[in-house]
Every structure is written in C-alpha cells, then in structure tokens.
C-alpha cells in the first residue's frame, strides 16, 4: 500500500503543478502529434444511411494508438518520482510500444511483460518494442494474455519498488491508476468536444468506443458525462460465442461477469462460481481481459453508459469496410467500435451526430486478419 500512497500523492501534486502540465502539453503536441483530427467519415455515413459519423483519429498519434497519451503523462510522473526503471504490461502491444517509446525518449530502462499468446498474435509489436530498447518478457502463466501480464508486472513492481515505476496502461488496477489513466486520456474527449462544436456548432448525439480495460472509452466519455442528452455506448468483445471463455463481455446479461476483486480493483469480473477468474477470448488482444475499469462498472450500474458487445466476425467485417470506404485501416479493437457505430448510425436520423473513437490503427493486425480471413 505504501507505494500506492506515494504514487497518489505524487500524482495529485503533479496535477496542480503548472510546469508539469506545460511539459505534458508540449510533449502531447510536439512529440505525440496532438490534437488528432475529428474526421467526418462521409462514405461510411452514406453507407449506413443514418447519423453523420465522425471519427476521432487517435490512430494518427505517434506509435499508432491513444495509449501514448497516458504513457507520456506517467513517464513524466515517474521522472518526477526519480524512478529510473519502468515496468509495464501489454496486451495488443500498443501500450508496450508507447511505453518503450517514451522510455527511449527519456533514456529510462523499460521492461514490458506480455503474454505468450499475445506475443504470437502481435509479433510485429514485440519487435518494435525491442527496437525501441525495451526488454519484452514472455508470460506463460494462466491464460498467457493481458491479465497474466498485469500479474507479472505487479510482481516485478513490488519486488523492485524502490527504483521502479509501474506504468499501467488501462483504467484498471488499484487506486490511483484508474483515475490517473482516465485523466491522461480525457484529452481525447476534451478535444473532440471542441472540434465537434467547430464542425457542427453543437454537441454530438452519441459517442461510441471500444472497452477492454476501458482507457480510450473513458477518455472520450468523461468530458461529456455531464451532458445528459448524449448517449454513450461502450463496446465489449463478443468473441466467438456467449459461453464463459468465448468472449470478454463483462456486462453480457447471459454469461457475463459478476462483481469481484481482481488486481486490486472491485469491478465486474468474468469468473466461475468459485471466484476463479475465467479465460476470455477475443480476436483483438487489447479487449481480451476478464475485468473492466471500475469507473465503467459505476457508469454501467448508474445507467449512464450502455454496454454492448460485438462479435469477432462483425469486427472483422467492420475492419474491412472502414479500410475500403475511408482508406483507414483500424485496429481490431477499434473495429469493434466501428461495427457498433454502423448499427447505431442506422437507428439514428440523418441530422444526428455520432462520434466514434478510432483508438488505434490496424497495421499491427494485418497478419492476424489475413489468418482469420483465410481460415
């Protein structure tokens, strides 16, 4: 607990520190490439024949996903805390790449834990991390995916806590991580809000984002939560079926999760009757996690955000459709949000506005998509 208390104190101090915030803003702008565009997807809109669809282009950020918003923030925090060594977990590899990138920028030692199954699915990202100077450690415990990588990163952190900073990549884990990651990712929603007002002169009617741990979605949603007329939809991985083990849809009515405690957080957890955490499946490594950020659990129970799931097959279709219609290859994670956007847009009027968070680009996924399409 002491390291978490130290982290909490350091985080709040940095939040009130103008020089910290100005360094963060500078890096987000000049290193990561913010602001990202809010793009009117005219052909996708036409294809659906409903609401006007806008894409928040987080895929255009340096390293290709929203993850770097958080890693820049937390690496600055680690430096402020005089930690020279960074450990992180990664699922799809995007958070690992973003962490390795910012560690390279500041000359910090970087160790990334990654499940063996994910290393296979995201081979290219493994090599990218190594090029960036990070050590990627294979995790062979449990399901060999994101959750096991988090366990291993936590073990490393508690063992080397004096010189090591744990850079958690999603809005998960013990306090203050969910809050800190949300704050760093909220730049997505703040920008989108400003941009839609410029484009349309009004706020959107609906927001859609995919939800693994929940960092890109909470980042988009959070600055709009007070606007009660805006509908928000979080999209979970429906995987290959509704049985426990076939999906990562924690809020599914059938075969979904129950409140539980995993990795220092109480939230919805996919688990068996004995409280053993269940295996999950998704075609996208970044959504393949049995629990969900606690703030999402709150928003779900409060009825503020609606959570739905999209199957592997529908995500694959959306992946191809967006590529062909807009010339944008989305990450498989983001393709889940696009698939839902296609459904939702059709149920909306043509004078309504829908903003979809395109959280990452799909270059990392082309091999696994090819495998899936050929099988």
């Amino acid at each position, binding site marked *: *607990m*002491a390291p978490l208390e130290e982290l909490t104190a350091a985080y709040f101090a940095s939040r009130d520190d103008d020089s910290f915030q100005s360094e963060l803003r500078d890096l987000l702008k000049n290193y990561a490439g913010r602001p990202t565009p809010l793009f009117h997807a005219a052909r996708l809109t036409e294809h659906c024949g409903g609401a006007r669809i806008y894409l928040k282009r987080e895929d255009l950020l340096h390293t290709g996903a929203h993850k770097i918003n958080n890693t820049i923030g937390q690496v600055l925090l680690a430096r402020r805390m005089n930690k020279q060594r960074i450990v992180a977990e990664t699922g799809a590899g995007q958070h690992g790449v973003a962490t390795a990138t910012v560690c390279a920028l500041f000359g910090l030692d970087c160790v990334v834990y990654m499940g063996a199954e994910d290393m296979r699915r995201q081979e290219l990202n493994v090599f990218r991390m190594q090029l960036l100077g990070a050590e990627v450690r294979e995790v062979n415990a449990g399901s060999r995916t994101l959750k096991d990588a988090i366990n291993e990163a936590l*073990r490393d952190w*508690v*063992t080397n806590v004096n010189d090591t900073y744990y850079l958690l990549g999603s809005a998960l884990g013990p306090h203050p991580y969910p809050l800190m990651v949300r704050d760093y990712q909220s730049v997505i929603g703040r920008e989108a809000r400003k941009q839609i007002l410029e484009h349309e002169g009004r706020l959107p009617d609906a927001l859609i984002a995919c939800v693994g741990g929940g960092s890109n979605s909470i980042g988009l949603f959070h600055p709009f939560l007070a606007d009660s007329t805006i509908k928000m939809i979080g999209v979970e991985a429906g995987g290959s079926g509704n049985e426990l083990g076939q999906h990562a849809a924690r809020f599914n009515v059938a075969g979904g999760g*129950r409140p539980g*405690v*995993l990795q220092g957080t109480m939230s919805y957890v996919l688990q068996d009757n004995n*409280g053993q955490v269940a295996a999950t499946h998704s075609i996208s490594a970044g959504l393949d996690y049995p629990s969900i950020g606690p703030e999402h659990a709150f928003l779900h129970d409060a009825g503020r955000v609606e959570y739905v799931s999209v199957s592997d097959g529908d995500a694959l279709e959306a992946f191809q459709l967006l590529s062909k219609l807009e010339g944008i290859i989305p990450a498989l994670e983001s393709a889940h949000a696009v698939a839902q956007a296609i459904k939702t847009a059709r149920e909306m009027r043509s004078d309504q506005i829908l903003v979809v968070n395109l959280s990452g680009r799909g270059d990392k996924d082309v091999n696994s998509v090819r495998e899936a399409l050929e099988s």
Partner: protein
Amino acid sequence: MGRIADAFTSLKREGKKGFIPYITAGDPDLATTEQLLSTIAPYATLIELGVPFSDPMADGPVIQRASERALKHVFGLQDILDTAARARKQIDTPIILFSYYNPLLQFGLKRVAPAAKDAGVDGVLVTDLTPEESGEFEAELHAHGLDMIFLIAPTSTDERLKLVAEHAGGFIYAVSRAGVTGAREKVSEEAEKLVKRMRQFSSLPIAVGFGISNAAQVADVSRYADAVVVGSAIVAEMERCAGDPELVRKVGQFLDGITGCS
C-alpha cells in the same frame, strides 16, 4: 482464548519459537491435503492453508504452479473447509486460511466466518484486502471468534503499521522483503528492522515469512521473530515428489530437516 493465542502462549512459556508451514489446498488434490495436514501438524505451531486462486499476484512461480495444479480439479471453498474439518478430528493445531479476496467474496462474506468456524479454522489472512477495506469482513470473523491476520512489509510506513495493529488479531505476518513469495538465498536484514518497528505498535506475536527455505534461515529469523513461515520450500518439495506415492512421508522428512527435529 482461541487456539492461535493458546499456541503462542504455550510457546512463550516454553521459551520456544514457532514454525508455520504453508500448503496450498488441493495441491495436487484435496485427499492429499487432508493427509498432509495431519502429517505437518506435529511440526507446526499453526498451519497456513492456502486457497488456490487463478491470479495469485502476491505469489512467486512455485506457489503459482501449486494453484495451477490444484485448479485442474474444480472445487470451492466449502470443499476446502470440509477437508480442514476432517483433518480437525485428528489434529489440534490452529489452522488459518491464506486466501485472495475474490474466492471469499464469491462464497459470500457472511457465509465465510460461520463455515470456517464449523470446520475448525481459527483465522483468515487475505493477501489483497487492506485494513482500510476489511471492516465488514473483520466484523464477521470476530463475531464468530476468528482472527483476521494481516501482512506488513518493509515498505509499510509507521502509520500503516499502526493501522494494522488496530485491526490485527492472532498474530502479525511480517513479509521479510519487498516482493512475492519464494525462496531466496539470504533473508533480508530488513525483516529484523520491520519486526522491531512493529513491536512498538503491537504486542501480538510476529511471524516472518517469504523467502525462508532452510534450517539455517529458520534459526536466524527465530532470533528476533516469534515464528517463522515456510511456504514455497515445502511446496517445491511437493512438486519434486509429484506422483510419488510416498509424497506425504517425504514432506514429513523435509520438515524434519528444516525444523531440526529428526
């Protein structure tokens, strides 16, 4: 007084230090666990019975593998308690459950204490439940005369040690160093400092664990601690003897060696 307090009181009277072995319930199956409880009881001041969990984030690879072996069979907390209850007919040694929070939470916090009491369990240690969050469960345990045991670590501030002292029952479990369970060549000097710091705030017995794997280390830690916990070394011995019909006897031999009573 409960069995835990009695055990430490008689140790003190005899001027002895305690020995606390750990095993994971269901490794490799619950029938073996039942036999092991009887076999290790004569060596033990108290027995820690681990509840296997799919995500044992406080454990090193040895105890992780024990959880994986156990979870090849589907069983729940009640099955573990039934095993303890059968062993309880043979032994009088205190037994505590060493668990992660989720298996207890899913069993039902209100159900755990009475069921554990019925099984002859004397206390519960929850690795991932902090004193700040433990109020409800602690009250349930106390209502049934069970102790709630807490971990402290070298990184714990004095404020945290005080907080633990306010909540802890039975004894206090001092983690010898920052990190997870598992054998180390050397027991950290931090452990002794931690025990000394904790004595300022609590008069409960203090056991030291994590990383203690041989007789020399047990003797060394016994200089300043009231008891020594050995877990991964025993579990590793069980792993070495996997499939051996003599497994239970060999664990007994191993305990002869580590406790110096053969």
